[in-house]
Every structure is written in structure tokens, then in C-alpha cells.
């Protein structure tokens, strides 16, 4: 216990030096790109910035999918001349019900439903079953829903990232959370309004023909929708459900100003598929109106004057410079597969962030000095050994947090400070034990030896129980509070090393150098 081999000494000192080395990158920018330069990152509460938690509206996706299945079934059954009634969606149970008039036709209907909806996915997306009273039920399977949700999650995260990248925010962090949420962290953004608006639109654009025969005041015919105009929602226009060209087939969109009228519009360029579709539809419908539909609103409904073969188009809809730029940005980034809503926003302005850094740093400094002074006054030389171990502890903690590029939050700074207060507990246990052994009449070396041995199991047990509580906090906490749990958990780990090994090494060296007959306890 009271002997350190050269190797062990070197290892302990080496670990401390490594800790110092790992802290260095926090002091300056990387001098050269090839160096592994890992820094502690500041949380949004210290740096200033905006945290948005976005919820993906999966329900609407399921409903949309059921709608599509319903439409396909309806078409299929009509083609197969099977009489049915009461086709109704039940999105709450992911189901679709319909009633077949003639019981003999049920097997045929089941076959049609299955064929019509056949998906190539490995997991079947739905099941079709016949129940009492000629009722047929189509149910989306859990596996199918799960696969769809995963795909939507991935796609949404990707599109959110593209939209935010286009705004020029530096170092944004976009991470999926759970099954249906996306966390967006925007350092330096103190007014997230513009970004929230950008993310609040699905930006699904379609080009559809206008149904000139339908009345916009009566109910919509089955193959058309009655949609409001974007610039004046009281004006309605009937548009076929059939999508002729999809906004997903765009390769580019940019805002430009008409040199003659001074109006802003958005220039579009379609990819090969989009260009072909656009050429076909425009060629077949010269002289007829088509509608540019964005998020269920009609931006404009111009007439095809001629066939458009080159896949280049322009939307004019009374845009301002910012609305044209935003629309172009949204179209370039792509449409969101499902609507997003912000369910949590936390914004910290740069002033408060700077205040918090000052408050945290001051508390850390004062708290550190108080603990150091107490240990020195209460234990003398052995207290100073504990203090040196405490500094080593702090450096190692910082080093480990740097290596993992952990995020330091204001509660995280509180965690560091409390760790300092708790870390000396191990030294206190050891020192008290040594005192007791001295009182029991042990010689210095024996007192130190027994003191360390006896204190060890206590140190271990008491730290493990404290660690349990903080690991739970890390697992269930969110945001800055996790930063607190993280620093404390790391701190407990480093404490086990420094308070025992580093302090012991110092004592052993001191004893070997001075050979005292009485311990200063």
C-alpha cells in the first residue's frame, strides 16, 4: 500500500500530464489542421442561441396513407364491378372499413384489395380481412407504420438540416430524438422566428390542372379539390386531384426580379422526369389553365400558352423579395414528408449567456478557494496533498470532457463545483482514518497504511451510490440538466483516481523524503 514502483509512479504522473495535455486545446484555436484538437463545447445557455424541439405530425401521415389506400381500393373495386358502400377511414385505429353488398363477391374483393395495394416492401404494410355483415377491414400493420415512420424521421431530419444550412446559421445541430421528434440547436440565434417559419411549412408543391366545370361554392367532385388562393383565401378554385408534375422533381429554384415590372418571381428548373412530364402536360393542354399548388393553397393558375419542352418555368404570384427568396429556398431543400410543429423553444440571448459564464466562473473560483482553504486549515499538510489531488482532479475532468467534446452548460458548471466539494470527501475519509490510527498508537507508516486500507471500501461504496443517482439523471434528464449529470458522473470517476492514487503518491514521497516520527494530523 505504501510503496509505489517506478512504473506505477510514472503511470500516475503520466495520467495527470495527459489530463493537462487534453485541456490545452480549450485555450486556443487549432494551430494546424492535422492536430487532434478536441474542445469542450459551450451549451446554448452559455453561448446564447435557440433550442427548438420539433414534433413530426405522424398522425397526418397515417391519415394520408389511409386516404390513398381508400382511393386505390375504390378504383379497384369499381374496375372489378363489385358493389360496395360505406367506405370509411378510422385513423385512430389505423383502419379502413367498407361494406360489400353481395357476400359472394367478398373473396374477389379481398383479392382486388390485396392486388391493388400490393406493396413491394418486405414487411406487408397492411392486412385485409373480412368480418361479419359483409364488412371488409383493411388495417395498416405495426411493422408497416414503423417502417414509414422511420423513413419519415430520416427524411424530415435531412430536409430540416438542408433548410437550416441554407439560412447560414453557423454550427447548427439537428438530431432526431425518440420516434417522432427532431431537436434543432441554433447557436447565436436570438430570434428564431424566421427559422421557425421556415420549418413550419411542409413546402409541398404540385402542378395540377384546373377543373373549370366544377362549381367552387358546391361540394368538390370526387376527383377534385376546392382550394383557396394564396394571396386571397376567400377566392377558391377547383383543382383536379391528379398530380401532373411534382415539386420533388425540381433541380433548382431561385428568386429573381423581373427587369420590366420590378416584380419578384421564382424560377424553376426541373430534372429529366419533371421536364418530360411538364412537356407532356403542357403540350396536351395548350390554352387550358393549370394551378401551382403549395401546401394546399393555389399560388397562381395561369394558362399554358404553348408546350414547354425545356423544363424551365417561372412562378409569379405577387411575391416580395423575402417571400420569393424563402420559397426558392424551401423548394431547393425539398418538401417535408409531414408537418412539423415546435413543441418546445428555449432561447438565450448573448447577454444572458455572457452573464451566466461570468456567474459560473466566479462561483467556481470562489467555491474552489473555499474548499482549498478549508482543507488546508483542517488537515494542514495532508490537506495540501488533498488540494493538489483536487487540482489534478479538475484538470482530468476537463481533459475527459474535452476528449468527448462534451457540452458544458451552466448546471454543468454547478456539477463541477459540487464534484470538487464531494471529491475531497475521499481525502477526508483517509485523513480521519490516519488520525484515528495515530490516536490508537500506531507508528506513522503503519497509521498511513491502515488509514488508506480501511478508507478504501468506504470510498468505493459511497461514490458508487452517488454515481447511481447521477446516471439516472443523465438517462432521464434533458438539456442543461444532463450537462450537470454528465460533469458529476465524470467527476466521480476522476475522484476515485486522484483522491486515492495521487494523494497517496504525494504522501509516500513525502514520507520517504522526510521520515517523520510524528504525523502532522
Amino acid at each position: 500500500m505504501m510503496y509505489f514502483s517506478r512504473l506505477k509512479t510514472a503511470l500516475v504522473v503520466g495520467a495527470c500530464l495527459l489530463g493537462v495535455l487534453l485541456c490545452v486545446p480549450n485555450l486556443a484555436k487549432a494551430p494546424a489542421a492535422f492536430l487532434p484538437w478536441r474542445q469542450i463545447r459551450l451549451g446554448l445557455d452559455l453561448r446564447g442561441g435557440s433550442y427548438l424541439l420539433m414534433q413530426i405530425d405522424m398522425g397526418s401521415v397515417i391519415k394520408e396513407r389511409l386516404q390513398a389506400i381508400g382511393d386505390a381500393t375504390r378504383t379497384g373495386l369499381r374496375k372489378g364491378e363489385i358493389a360496395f358502400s360505406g367506405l370509411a377511414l378510422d385513423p385512430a385505429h389505423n383502419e379502413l372499413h367498407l361494406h360489400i353488398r353481395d357476400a359472394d363477391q367478398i373473396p374477389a374483393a379481398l383479392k382486388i384489395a390485396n392486388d391493388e395495394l400490393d406493396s413491394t416492401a418486405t414487411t406487408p404494410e397492411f392486412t385485409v380481412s373480412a368480418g361479419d355483415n359483409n364488412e371488409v377491414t383493411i388495417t395498416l400493420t405495426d411493422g408497416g407504420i414503423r417502417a414509414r415512420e422511420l423513413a419519415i424521421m430520416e427524411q424530415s431530419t435531412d430536409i430540416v438540416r438542408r433548410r437550416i444550412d441554407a439560412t447560414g446559421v453557423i454550427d447548427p445541430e439537428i438530431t432526431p430524438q425518440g420516434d417522432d421528434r427532431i431537436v434543432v440547436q441554433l447557436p447565436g440565434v436570438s430570434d428564431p422566428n424566421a427559422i421557425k417559419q421556415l420549418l413550419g411549412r411542409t413546402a409541398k408543391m404540385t402542378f395540377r390542372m384546373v377543373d373549370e366545370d366544377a362549381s367552387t361554392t358546391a361540394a368538390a367532385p370526387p376527383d377534385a379539390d376546392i382550394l383557396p388562393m394564396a394571396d386571397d383565401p376567400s377566392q377558391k378554385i377547383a383543382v383536379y386531384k391528379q398530380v401532373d408534375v411534382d415539386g420533388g422533381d425540381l433541380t433548382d429554384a431561385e428568386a429573381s426580379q423581373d427587369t420590366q415590372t420590378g416584380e419578384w418571381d421564382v424560377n424553376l428548373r426541373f430534372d429529366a422526369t419533371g421536364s418530360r412530364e411538364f412537356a407532356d402536360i403542357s403540350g396536351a393542354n395548350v390554352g387550358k389553365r393549370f394551378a401551382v399548388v403549395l401546401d394546399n393553397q393555389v399560388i397562381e393558375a395561369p394558362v399554358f400558352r404553348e408546350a414547354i419542352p425545356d423544363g424551365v418555368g417561372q412562378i409569379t404570384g405577387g411575391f416580395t423579395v423575402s417571400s420569393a427568396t424563402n420559397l426558392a429556398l424551401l423548394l431547393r431543400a425539398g418538401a417535408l414528408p409531414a408537418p412539423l410543429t415546435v413543441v418546445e423553444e428555449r432561447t438565450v440571448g448573448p447577454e444572458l449567456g455572457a452573464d451566466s459564464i461570468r456567474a459560473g466562473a466566479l462561483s467556481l473560483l470562489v467555491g474552489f478557494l473555499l474548499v482549498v482553504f478549508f482543507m488546508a486549515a483542517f488537515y494542514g499538510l495532508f490537506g495540501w496533498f488533498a488540494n493538489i489531488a483536487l487540482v489534478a482532479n479538475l484538470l482530468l475532468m476537463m481533459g475527459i470532457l474535452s476528449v468527448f467534446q462534451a457540452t458544458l452548460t451552466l448546471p454543468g458548471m454547478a456539477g463541477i463545483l459540487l464534484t470538487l466539494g464531494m471529491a475531497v470527501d475521499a481525502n477526508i475519509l483517509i485523513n480521519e482514518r490516519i488520525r484515528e490510527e495515530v490516536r490508537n498508537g500506531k507508528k506513522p507508516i503503519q497509521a498511513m497504511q491502515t488509514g488508506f486500507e480501511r478508507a478504501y471500501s468506504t470510498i468505493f461504496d459511497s461514490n458508487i451510490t452517488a454515481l447511481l443517482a447521477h446516471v439516472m439523471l443523465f438517462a432521464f434528464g434533458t438539456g442543461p440538466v444532463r450537462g450537470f449529470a454528465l460533469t458529476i458522473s465524470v467527476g466521480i470517476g476522476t475522484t476515485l483516481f486522484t483522491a486515492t492514487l495521487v494523494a497517496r503518491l504525494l504522501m509516500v514521497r513525502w514520507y520517504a523524503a522526510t521520515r517523520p516520527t510524528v504525523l502532522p494530523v
Partner: protein
Amino acid sequence: MFIRPLFRLVPDGTKIKFMRGRFIGLAVSALLSTLSVILFFYPGLDLGLDFKGGIVLEVRTPGPADFNLIRKSLAAKGVANAEVQRFGADNEVLVKIESQKTEAATQSTIDTARATLIASAPGTKVLEADAVGASVSSELFRKGLLALGISLAMILVYIWFRFEWEFAVGAVATLILDVTKTIGFLVITRLQFDLVMVAAILTIIGYSTNDKVVVYDRMRENLRKYKTMPLRELIDLSINETLSRTIATSSTVFLAALPLALFGGASLSAFALTMLFGIVVGTTSSIFIAAPILLLLGEHRLRRDIAPPKPAARKK
């Protein structure tokens, strides 16, 4: 100070008979905890934004803030029931708005409120703007309670595993008493109960357990060492032997948390005040609650379990 210790907080070889006060300790603790539980139901905790949902904005105006103007302009923009108050300096304004019916309404309200506040006086800076929707707040609350429950369960299992079940039950019962008192403290001080407070309570649990484990550890050791000493004397002896350490450690943790309470800013000082309270409760409860519970539970059992009796009896 550099070689010899300057002072001692506890003289050597104290022989305080703590267990004499065991019924008083338990009774006072039970009373305080019962009162806290009553306070928890009425008037109840002041739930913060994290758990209640809603909107909180903090702004700093260039000159002294005109609170009436801010109230009026918010009302004019349709932001109803906004609570506008001063916090800290006279140019710092805190605006609280209750949870809205839908997430979309919450979002439009915070955007309107932010714009209104910035427009109310040129040069106004938004220090902080938070909006928490109803679904998120209930989820955060559930997760917070879950973290508390699981930590207690894990501590119970760990101590059971490392010591005897009497120790584990004593520790967890004491922890529950500590937590209820902390909640009573929060109700009385009207400190807001939010995620940071859950962190504070978990830290108190961690600290308090740590303290109990140290005392228990000494009891376990003494049980082996003094095979014939009555449990009551043995517990007193163990507490006296660890007293200096108990006071030293609670002092260092107290000293570390103190600057946070003084300079840590609004949210951290509430956290640190709760911690300071918890340190006092956690330290005293090791002596006056955990030890008496152990004495009651283990009066006859622990002696039989641990002291190895005659060799013949050891073979089962």
C-alpha cells in the same frame, strides 16, 4: 496551516449518546415530513415552466422599464393574461404567459410577445425566451419522477447487496423522509420546481446516501470488531468515530454550493439554496433518522446475522 492543522471542529474521542435522542429524532422528522406532505397537497409546489408548460420571456430594456406600457401593448396585440413583473434590476422585465390550448397557439403567442416586447422600447434585448408545450411538460414531469424513483430503487438494491437489508431499508426510508422535507422547503420558499430542482433532489439523494454509507460502513466494521457490544452502544460509537469526517465533508460540500447560491444567477441560486438545505437535512438524518431506524430494525437480528457464533453453528 501549511503543515499542522489550524483547527478541529470535533474534539477527539467524543462519546455523545446519540441514540438517547432516537425517539425525539424520529418524531421530529416524522412531523416535519408529514407537514411537508400536507404542504405538497396544499398549497402545493410552484411548478416551473418545465412542468407546467407555458411561456416565459425575460427582456432587458435600455432605460428603466415602463411596465404599464408593456402590459398595455401586450394586451393590444391579443396576448391575454400576461403576468409582467420586475426581476433584478429595474430595467429587467419578466413576462409569464399561461399555457395555450394548442402547440400552434403557444408558438404564435411567443412570437407575438417577443416582437411586442422588442418594439415596446428601442434597444430592448431579449435575454431569454422559453415556450414549453403541454405534451412536453407532462413528459418532462413523468421522466423526472421516474429518475427519482429508479435512483431510490437502485440505491436500495445496492446497499442491500453490499450490507444487510436492514441497512438498505433504513437508508431508503431516510432518503424518502429527506426528499419529502426538501419538497416542504420548496413549497415554503416558493422556489420554482423545475428540472433543475429534480437535479438538486437527486444530488441531495446522492449526497445523503454517501453520508449514510460512511456511517453504515463503520457500523459494519464495528459489528465484526466488537462482537459483544450492544447494538445501541455500537451505533453511538460508530457515529462518534465518524463525526469529524461527517462534519468536514458536509462543510466542504456546503462551501462549494455556497458561492452558487450567492453568485449563480436566478436558476442556479435556487438550485444551490435547495442543495444547502439538503446538505443539512442529509447530514443530520444519517445520525438522527437512519441510525435509529437501523437500531429498531436490527436490535435482535443484526447481532445474530453478523457475529460469527460458535464454529458448530456456522455450518448450515
